[in-house]
């Protein structure tokens, strides 16, 4: 069966520090991968998605970036965190067409 992992689960970082969040998927090949941010009390905002290794599409302008160095690994990064980067970050995978996305447990990021 397929599983998706995210780490760390919780992270507290100072403003201006770098960020690296990792997501890995097991039990499937060539998935689409997604990064979302969920601000407190709000819905999900799609940040990036990837349909293959090295293929990244950005949905919103920001100081975050994403990379997909391996088929089942998706990394969210920042060189310098802002206070507004605080939130709950969710990774998801899908195997199209149209079966839905499956989410990881999330990372709670607090920028102080």
């Amino acid at each position: 069966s397929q599983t998706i992992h995210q780490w760390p689960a919780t992270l507290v970082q100072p403003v201006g520090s770098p960020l690296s969040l990792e997501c890995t998927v097991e039990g499937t090949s060539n998935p689409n991968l997604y990064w979302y941010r969920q601000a407190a009390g709000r819905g999900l905002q799609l940040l990036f998605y990837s349909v293959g290794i090295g293929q990244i599409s950005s949905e919103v302008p920001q100081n975050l970036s994403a990379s997909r160095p391996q088929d089942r690994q998706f990394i969210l990064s920042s060189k310098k965190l802002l206070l507004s980067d605080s939130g709950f970050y969710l990774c998801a995978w899908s195997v199209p067409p149209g079966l839905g996305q499956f989410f990881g447990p999330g990372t709670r990021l607090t920028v102080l």
Partner: protein
Amino acid sequence: AQSVTQPDIHITVSEGASLELRCNYSYGATPYLFWYVQSPGQGLQLLLKYFSGDTLVQGIKGFEAEFKRSQSSFNLRKPSVHWSDAAEYFCAVGTSYNTDKLIFGTGTRLQVFP
């Protein structure tokens, strides 16, 4: 542009009562639709999905949803709510079979009283 509206931000029901969560979508083509549930501090879990065919779809945890094209709606229902159903519920519409991108509603928070 595609969009999803969940008109109810917060709903409170008594345990054992019936539940209906509303979802309206705007999409030019035949949509494929989803309902997800999120417990506090957790990821989202897929409850059910609609692609085509039977407009009444069954999901996990006793939930069902009905697709009504004429009303552009995909409401989620449960005949008898349990205290463990308290969570945030998100409706989503799929916009592309290739990318599998989804547009999510803003969510409905369900509170269940004993």
